[in-house]
């Protein structure tokens, strides 16, 4: 037991003191924060883009309505449209417009004469039509303008029309465990994705760190000296626990950083951050499922590190170990949308997916407690079995140099007394 402690201590101190630890501790949350906050920041940024567009409409009044609609959206869109109206839709006039577009006097022209509208369509011709957000705005501006025009022609005044167009904002409230928390679907999505990706990254980061450490001990032959006083089991246990302790340290530092961020009121993207508040309730679970995932995968990775002789060899086989994790991220959106669908529930019971999927379900919507308990129990049992298996591979593998073992050879290792 003392040996495990000495190995653990070395592993922990050697890692915590590195610059890499400092950098990931500081940069990963910054990166995550940027991912969450930047889109809302970017959206609220005023864009200087201006589009000069000629509008060919049967009445100047209609062009004014379109301008009005576009102005209302210009803030959200980031592009300002400057329209010039003309009523002449003859082929000669159109040809002139095309020349002006070619001469870069205009960015494009919009053809919305009564003839076009009657056919239920409008034409936007421009030098660049690749900005689908812009064309979508134009389309919606034209339809709204047309609807408003028709309503007006039936005698409704502007106030009536405005009231017809008033929007309803859907306020979503999550009911869980008797508590209700306000949040909208987008924020929940962002928070869930963030938390899940943090889990994904930390499990892989630390799992692979274990593999690298084992591989380094093997290739540098430190293992020979170590085995003079430590059993392979003690070595593997000390290593996995030591690296795991580094992971826990990092997560705790992140908690503290997040807490400081909130209390200091530095939360830039207010709405996005209220999603994190929702996540803060689930931070305890983050640690639990990180440890579950870490121990499960670190055990596999330790055995993998003992099996191979070089980083290149390891990379070829790493993919197999990572497959369930990658698969979990693939179904992530499905699980967020329907956390109680059979797919989500069953996957959350597969121990290799539990750390990500069950945790995600917890973040999105509190699953029944028995499901959480069952998934934890299954993962612990699987890890226990894997430790027994992998420590046998590890014990033989760390002393085997040369070519990569074949599957039958590995089976033989497991059977060695």
């Amino acid at each position, binding site marked *: 037991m*003392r040996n495990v402690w000495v190995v653990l201590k070395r592993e922990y101190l050697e890692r915590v003191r590195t610059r890499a630890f400092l950098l990931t501790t500081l940069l990963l949350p910054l990166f995550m924060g940027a991912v969450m906050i930047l889109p809302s920041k970017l959206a609220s940024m005023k864009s200087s883009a201006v589009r000069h567009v000629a509008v060919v409409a049967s009445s100047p009044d209609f062009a004014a309505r379109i301008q009005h609609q576009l102005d209302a959206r210009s803030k959200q869109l980031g592009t300002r449209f400057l329209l010039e109206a003309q009523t002449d839709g003859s082929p000669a006039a159109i040809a002139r417009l095309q020349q002006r577009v070619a001469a870069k006097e205009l960015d494009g022209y919009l053809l919305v004469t009564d003839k076009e509208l009657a056919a239920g369509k409008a034409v936007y011709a421009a030098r660049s039509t690749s900005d689908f957000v812009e064309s979508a705005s134009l389309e919606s501006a034209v339809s709204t303008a047309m609807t408003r025009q028709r309503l007006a022609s039936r005698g409704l005044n502007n106030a009536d029309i405005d009231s017809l167009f008033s929007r309803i904002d859907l306020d979503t409230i999550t009911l869980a465990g008797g508590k209700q928390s306000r949040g909208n679907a987008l924020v929940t999505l962002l928070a869930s994705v963030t938390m899940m990706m943090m889990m994904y990254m930390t499990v892989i980061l630390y799992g692979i760190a274990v593999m690298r450490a084992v591989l380094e001990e093997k290739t540098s032959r430190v293992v020979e000296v170590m085995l003079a006083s430590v059993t392979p089991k003690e070595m593997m246990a000390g290593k996995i626990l030591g690296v795991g302790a580094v992971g826990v340290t990092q997560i705790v530092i992140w908690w503290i950083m997040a807490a400081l961020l909130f209390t200091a009121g530095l939360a830039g993207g207010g709405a996005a951050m209220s999603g994190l508040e929702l996540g803060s309730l689930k931070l305890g679970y983050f640690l639990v499922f990180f440890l579950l995932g870490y121990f499960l995968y670190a055990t596999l990775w330790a055995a993998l590190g003992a099996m191979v002789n070089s980083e290149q060899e390891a990379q070829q086989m790493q993919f197999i170990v990572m497959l369930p994790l990658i698969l979990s991220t693939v179904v992530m959106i499905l699980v967020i949308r329907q956390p109680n669908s059979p797919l989500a529930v069953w996957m959350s019971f597969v121990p290799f997916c539990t750390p990500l999927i069950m945790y995600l379900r917890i973040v999105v919507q509190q699953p029944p407690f028995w499901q959480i308990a069952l998934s934890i129990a299954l993962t612990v049992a699987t890890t226990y079995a894997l430790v027994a298996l992998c420590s046998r591979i590890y014990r033989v593998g760390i002393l085997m140099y040369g070519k990569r073992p074949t599957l039958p050879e590995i089976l033989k290792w497991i059977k060695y007394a």
Partner: protein
Amino acid sequence: MDSVQLKDVSKSYGEFVAVDALTFAVPAGGIYGLLGPNGAGKTSTIRMLMGITLPDRGEVALFGRPFDRRQLRRIGYLPEERGLYRRMKVLEHLVFLGELHGMSAAEAGKKGAAWCERLELADWTKKKVEELSKGMQQKVQFIAALLHEPEIVILDEPFYGLDPLNTTVLKDALLEFRRGGRTILFSTHRMDQVEKLCDAICLINHGRAVLEGDLKQIKARFGRNNVQIAYEGGGDGVALQDSPLVDKFNDYGNYVEVRLRAGADPQELLRLVAARNRISRFELMEPSLEEIFIETVGKSDA
């Protein structure tokens, strides 16, 4: 009491028999050489002594009692495959290995620093292992093997790859260690080291002991029928090879070595050589270990 005892120990890796019913005993106190050509099973044997691998058959006893992992704290080990944590600082590394052998960190630090001083590593204690030369790294590992003052030290090819200066430094440390009544077991394929250092040896080949026991007795068993002759004149006139007195003839350049045929009189050989050359040295001696080695291994291979 024997410090280390192997009884009928065998170990195979798949089809390959690395150690085959090996039996030998290392008496307490003194230096014991485990000798053999490459691939003879020296490292496999030592790994079983350290409990790194388990024998398929047979028994290993340490300090007169069956092998038990707890005994390992009283043993120091220098493996053949050297390796340290490259990014660890030298002294911290020594403390770490000392702690694994049951020392306190403070004690290991103090003794480690003293050893570094002695082996001229004092300026390197705060450097990372990867900044050290191979020879220096080997010295660090050597210190690690002796740091916890074990009663037995087991060294696998301890001088391999060292320059003569460092070899002498380590050899002196080992000799001092022996004076404290401790036991040293080391493996090598270098005969000269064994001749200089060992009290007893075990010569193994193909995993079997072919010669075992006290070095002096072994040499005596092979008798004093070797003669080294150095003479002036290049020896063109000496047709020793064809002489009926000579069993084996070796020209080493500066001198020749002759093994007499059984029953031949060395004085007769002296007269024969003196008749034609100016002799600067004529010495009747025991066979060198190298010769014994080559002969015994050759015989066991045949």
